[in-house]
């Protein structure tokens, strides 16, 4: 993965010749997962254009339409092909918007994790010594409190402090902040390990001899070489963040029902599962599981392909 900037024109050619591309072409599962993920991403981005209804617009919601089963069931209405939820919202539209919310929170939270983790990891690995051991000790402590535990407590306390209404307006930001801050050690540890390995290599010495400053060496020379672990972690972390968000929303500590993520949609449907309205829970549940599963499978595949450790054979 030594991406030298000089040979930029042939980057595409180099990519097509890489181990990465070759194993992608061979691996059906990876292609399938990538396809599903891209589809979910596109649906989420263009949700306002695709969705037949706007679930945030109360004018379009008629409570008389509540709990209609999917259109293929006997009592279904052709207007709502996946049926409606307890408030009479079109389930298909709500799922599209919910996927959008879940992915937004997942990706933003992971970007925050990566940002913090990369900065701290680079600093710890490159500076070393006391700074390193202090930062890594903090990372240990942070990891020993589980993310879910920290998130539940922090969000619960904020909800109690702000009151439910104000909290619901801030929910998305709070979720991103909490999930983002709680998981930075995942990145920091890996980046630090890569930096320690890369630091020993000749090109870093060469860069230092040529008089490049520390920051430049870190960002221009070391960071590009830590891209593969970052990519592997990010895939799995987005999956984890989506699950965390869904769980928090299920507990009522996340997105409000008026602006549901997949998790809060499932949660709102749970009460009705006993009365037979399975679709409000099951369909968003399947979407959530599919989304997380393809991300996890992609993560596994990336780890197999990119991890040079596994090459030894």
């Amino acid at each position, binding site marked *: 993965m030594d991406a030298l900037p000089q040979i930029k024109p042939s980057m595409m050619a180099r990519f097509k010749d890489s181990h990465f591309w070759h194993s992608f072409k061979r691996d059906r599962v990876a292609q399938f997962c990538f396809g599903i993920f891209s589809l979910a991403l596109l649906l989420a981005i263009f949700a306002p254009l695709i969705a037949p209804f706007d679930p945030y617009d109360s004018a379009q919601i008629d409570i008389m339409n509540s709990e209609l089963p999917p259109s293929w069931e006997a009592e279904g209405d052709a207007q709502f092909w996946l049926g409606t939820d307890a408030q009479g919202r079109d389930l298909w539209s709500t799922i599209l918007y919910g996927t959008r919310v879940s992915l937004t929170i997942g990706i933003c939270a992971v970007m925050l994790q990566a940002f913090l983790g990369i900065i701290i990891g680079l600093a710890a690995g490159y500076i070393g010594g006391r700074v390193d051991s202090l930062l890594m000790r903090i990372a240990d402590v942070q*990891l*020993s*409190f*589980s*993310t*879910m*535990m920290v998130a*539940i*407590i922090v969000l*619960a*306390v904020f*909800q*109690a*402090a702000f009151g439910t209404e104000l909290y619901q307006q801030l929910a998305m930001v709070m979720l991103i902040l909490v999930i983002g801050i709680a998981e930075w050690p995942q990145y920091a540890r890996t980046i630090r390990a890569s930096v320690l390995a890369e630091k020993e290599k000749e090109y870093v010495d060469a860069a230092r001899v040529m008089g490049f400053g520390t920051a430049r060496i870190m960002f221009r020379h070391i960071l590009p070489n830590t891209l593969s672990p970052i990519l592997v972690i990010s895939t799995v972390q987005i*999956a984890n963040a989506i*699950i965390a968000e*869904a*769980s928090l929303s*299920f*507990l*009522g*500590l996340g997105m409000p029902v008026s602006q549901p993520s997949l*998790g809060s949609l*499932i*949660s709102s449907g*749970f009460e009705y*599962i*006993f009365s037979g309205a*399975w679709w409000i*829970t099951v369909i968003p*549940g399947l979407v*959530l*599981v599919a989304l*997380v*599963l393809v*991300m*996890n*499978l992609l993560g*596994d595949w990336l780890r197999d392909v990119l991890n040079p450790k596994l090459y030894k054979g």
Partner: protein
Amino acid sequence: MFAFLIRRLFQALVVMFVISIISFSIQDNLGDPLREMLGQSVSEEQRQAMRDEMGLNDPFLTQYGRFLGKAVQGDLGTSYFFKEPALDVILKKLPATLELVFGATLIIIVFSVPLGIYSAINPQSIFSKIIMGVSTIGISVPVFLTAIGLIYVFAIELGWMPAFGRGETFQITENLDTALLTADGLHHLILPSFTLASIMLPLFIRLIRSEMMEVLQSEYIKFAWAKGISPWRVYFLHAFKNTMLPVITVGGVQIGTMVAYTILTETVFQWPGMGFLFLEAVNRVDTPLIVAYLIVVGAIFVVTNTLVDLIYGFVNPTVKLTGK
């Protein structure tokens, strides 16, 4: 052993100190105890007088000192809702949560060890691939969906299991009961335990598998084979004992996660444990109860981590616990 205990004790103090500060800040900023006690009908002057009297206008440190002093004696305030000492309310719910954790731990150990070892020994077999595939799916299903799925299939459709609650319990003392000693209680425990286990099980299977595979590559395993001893002994003594070391460490970290997920599991199954109580307390802004929960969870954390360290030292001879 002595040095170890001292070190542990020190760590425990630090953790409890941090938790107490957090808890106190919550108590200090959340809700107004006066309003809870007096209601709205009291004048502002009386209110101020009361504040002075109760020491609510004292500097932060003084108030914290007072809080700590009471906390050490087991007084964490009175629950606004239950009108009982918060600690008592929490401790009454502790057995239910521990039962759940116990059930889940049992399931995790019983399944993860053989499945992990099997898939490490036969990585190419179809059964191993199925194990790995299912565990990837398992990781991808959030715990509340597992719970809903189990309820839907086993409680609603098949009707084999109760959908919620703890069932009949066996009263040991006035404040201590257990569902483990009644058939009905055990019956109620099955679905929640499997739900709670479902999060950790795939993780542990994968962990045991990858650690075991690494150990099987090592020189001492090759040497064990070269000695001509039985495969059973190589796998289950030589390899497994070494596999356990990292698994125990990770297991210790996962205890925190497990406690967090009891909240989710208890909520879905309306299992009357601490987690369920905690969420109720959050919704009612019952601050003393929230604080008591945090402190009890912190204590559980410290105790279990110490236990994990002791077990680790017991398995790993290079860690000196018992100074000879």
